[in-house]
């Protein structure tokens, strides 16, 4: 965006402190515009009253992200990509996490197709209070036959609400796919130097986003993007080519770096979301594990460095899990707190017989332990000790988790050990060396829990209630 202080945004607001947005003042609202947690449309008078029309329009222009935002799909499953304002996540945060698309192809048997689509849309991994899931299906035209392609696209649309990427360089094939899926707003892949006129015409006719593909030719890529945008096709995605190995991969990384830097620096003609195609790793590796590994490695690089949407092939868990986690890693808002408040939390409905567990106040640690306990129906007291937001193992090594800290944590929380029938504290397995000290410091019995909280339910079965 073109402004970076609340004061600059404030000038365009009504200045009445009416509070309709839920903020106490227009200045407070302005600061949320700058950190992008609220939008200009959230100021009700600004939107509704005609006297503010000019200011509203100006503000919207000034607040528009440097990299354009492109929406693929419709309704609840629509996915936005792009929309970034910074080159490094610590400068603000990255917006619109990289969309992960997995392929199907039009020479698949119908049963296999449906099974694969279901696997893609059903994959989920629980992580700090939510599920990590995949996003899209990319349909490849292998047959180059419009009818086959249309039939495959149709079947995919019947099977899933996931948005689609329609992949072919043949305009007739793309048209056939669009005819059965246009209302789902799929992404077209792709316009290249030979077919761009026909593909541009399809994007216009069906009003869908479109990818421009110019492998290692940034002049051509920019030329196509500019041409499309100037002709009213503004929902453009850039594919500068993903060369999976050797010098080609180094070049590919640098193409991504150059495009995004130019876009953030204000070159509007190239300021579009970027697509990576880690799928190409499968053209370089024969065996499945090597190909999946390399594809995941390439996907990781472009999740970290500016890929906004990616197409992959492997749907093995050992490929999907790291892909989902590295995507979450990069798109987690660095402004969110690292810690939870130190306290004794009740998990489920604990009683006097329930265990008292110790962990740290590092948010990731706390939520991991919390979800392991609650999803397995363990009722207990879970104590978050103030370790300055450091995890158990590192906090024991660094002296942030000590017997004195545990004592202080329980005292500060006002937790009365006397209400427990067992008078036992369970410390994490990775803090085992603190056992004696904690016994001395608190006078309570101390049991050593498992090294990983995922094993707490099993540990409970074996060890709880404690032997007198």
């Amino acid at each position, binding site marked *: 965006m073109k402004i970076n202080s609340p004061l600059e945004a404030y000038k365009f607001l009504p200045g009445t402190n009416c509070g309709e947005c839920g903020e106490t003042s227009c200045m407070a609202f302005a600061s949320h515009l700058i950190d992008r947690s609220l939008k200009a449309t959230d100021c009700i008078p600004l939107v509704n009253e005609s006297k503010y029309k000019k200011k509203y329009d100006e503000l919207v222009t000034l607040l528009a992200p440097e990299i354009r935002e492109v929406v693929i799909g419709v309704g609840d499953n629509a996915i936005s990509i792009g929309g970034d304002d910074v080159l*490094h*996540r*610590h400068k603000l945060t990255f917006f619109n996490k990289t969309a992960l698309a997995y392929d199907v192809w039009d020479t698949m048997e119908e049963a296999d197709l449906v099974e694969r689509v279901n696997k893609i849309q059903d994959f*989920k*991994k*629980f992580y700090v209070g939510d599920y990590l899931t995949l996003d899209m299906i990319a349909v490849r035209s*292998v047959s180059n036959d419009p009818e086959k392609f249309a039939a495959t696209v149709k079947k995919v649309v019947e099977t899933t609400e996931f948005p689609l990427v329609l*992949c*072919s360089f043949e*305009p007739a094939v793309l*048209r056939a796919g669009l005819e059965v899926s246009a209302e789902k707003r799929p992404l077209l892949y792709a316009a290249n130097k030979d077919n761009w*006129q*026909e593909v541009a*015409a399809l994007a*216009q*006719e069906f009003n869908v986003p479109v990818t421009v593909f110019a492998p290692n030719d*940034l002049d*051509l890529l920019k*030329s196509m993007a*500019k041409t*499309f945008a100037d002709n009213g096709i503004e929902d453009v995605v850039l594919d500068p080519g993903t*060369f*999976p*190995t*050797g010098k080609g*991969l*180094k070049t590919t*990384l*640098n193409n991504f770096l*150059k*495009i995004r*830097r*130019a876009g953030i620096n204000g070159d509007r*003609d190239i300021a579009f979301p970027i697509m990576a195609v880690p*799928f*190409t790793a499968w*053209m370089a590796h024969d065996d499945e*594990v090597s*190909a999946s*590994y390399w594809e995941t490695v390439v996907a*990781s*690089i472009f999740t*970290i*460095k500016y890929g906004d949407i990616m197409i992959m092939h492997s749907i093995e*868990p*050992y490929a999907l899990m*790291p892909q989902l986690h*590295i995507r*979450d890693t*990069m798109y987690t808002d660095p402004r969110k707190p690292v810690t939870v408040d130190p306290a004794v939390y009740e998990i489920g409905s604990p009683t006097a017989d329930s265990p008292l567990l110790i962990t740290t106040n590092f948010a*990731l640690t706390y939520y991991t332990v919390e*979800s392991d306990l609650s999803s397995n129906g363990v009722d207990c007291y879970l104590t978050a000790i103030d370790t300055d937001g*450091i*995890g158990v193992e590192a906090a024991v*090594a*660094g*002296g942030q988790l000590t017997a004195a800290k545990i004592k202080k944590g329980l005292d500060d929380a006002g937790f009365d050990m006397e209400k427990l029938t067992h008078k036992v504290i369970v410390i994490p397995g990775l803090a085992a060396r603190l056992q004696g000290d904690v016994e001395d410091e608190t006078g309570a019995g101390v049991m050593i829990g498992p090294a*990983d909280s*995922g094993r707490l*339910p099993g540990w409970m079965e074996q060890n709880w209630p404690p032997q007198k």
Partner: protein
Amino acid sequence: MSNKMKLSGLTDLLKDLDVESLEGVSIEGDIELDISGGGGLNPAMAYALGHEAAQISMHVANIARMLGYPVDQLFAASMGGLPQAPVAGASRIPELLPAKFDVSKMSEWATPIQEVTLGATSADGGSRKNTVTLGGENALPYYFDAEMPHRNYVTMDVFDMPISMAKSVKENYGDVINDPAEWAKKAVRDFNADMITIHLISTDPLINDTPAREAAKVVEDVLQAVDVPIVIGGSGNPQKDPEVLERAAEVAEGERVLLASASLNLDYERVAKAATDYGHAVLSWTQLEINAQKELNRKLMKQCNVPRDSIVMDPTTAALGYGLDYAYSNMERIRLAGLMGDEELTFPMSSGTTNAWGARESWMKESPLKQDSDWGPREYRGPIWEIVTGLTLALAGNDMFMMMHPTSVQVLKEITQTLYGSIEAEEIDITKWIGAEV
């Protein structure tokens, strides 16, 4: 006129036609396909012929178009409109707007990262076969702004006693787990380790409380067993480590090892002195806190007189899914600050990438949560967890990786050296990816 020729003859004819001089050429009559060979058409042959016929018809249509015949309407009528232009020709975009892509280099990155050399050859009074130089960057890693002067290096972990390890890691070391020297040898010989880290964990008073003097013997054994540069790590016990590292530094005199580590929660002056007295480098370890890193580096330089060319930083590695976001941004901020002139942060970095094995995803047989999709075989999950953790930090500017699993080491070396630019590979025609059979 009846014109009978073979398909290949027709393509040859058309290939040779000079489009400029087509005036007056007319093609009339039916083209008869002369297919030789008995037994009818097999599907592959039919496909090939169909392809060739389609190519010919396109050539012929082009000729007709040049001659002014409305070919497209003809096709539209006969083929149900499929290949027809989607909108009327008038609204088509006539030509591409010219554009030249250009982007500037980062002028703010004006300060190079300090170079630190580990290991000493006989020329410098040591017995290593080669040395390893870290740092020297003038840009973020692999960026076009400036060539990276040195590749990334991997130092593989060796422990002075058997420790608990993930199953898929342990499988590789079962035969050497009781012998640090043999373990080190195996890592260099079989797993292509650039360096070895010997962790003297048995010295921890809460483990075996091995005396520093005895632990130093293990260091000597490892220096004998391998000729790559080494890193010496303590047990992490802040009371014991200074003494252990002093002894180790003494027996390793002349070999220019990296002592791991100095930190704010132990007597870093003793560790620093051990390094400067015996000509070693020191690892400056802090926990995910850029200001603490500045403070410790400043103390090492100003208070302990450690030369700039003898400091490597370990700003802490958290595993993928367990705080890697903090570790990544912390490292990236440190590197950017260094490049932009913060003299307290212009040092190469090291990552305890092995920490990835703390993530349950890398070692647990299955998810502890029943809501999760199947996690699949763990022997494939573990190495990729270590690879992605390392690769992420490589992109943040990390120079050296402490690692465990041979597959992780191999893949991480391949990817970082690919990005560094030293790996050649056959070029792949990626324009064919859509139709690839996989």
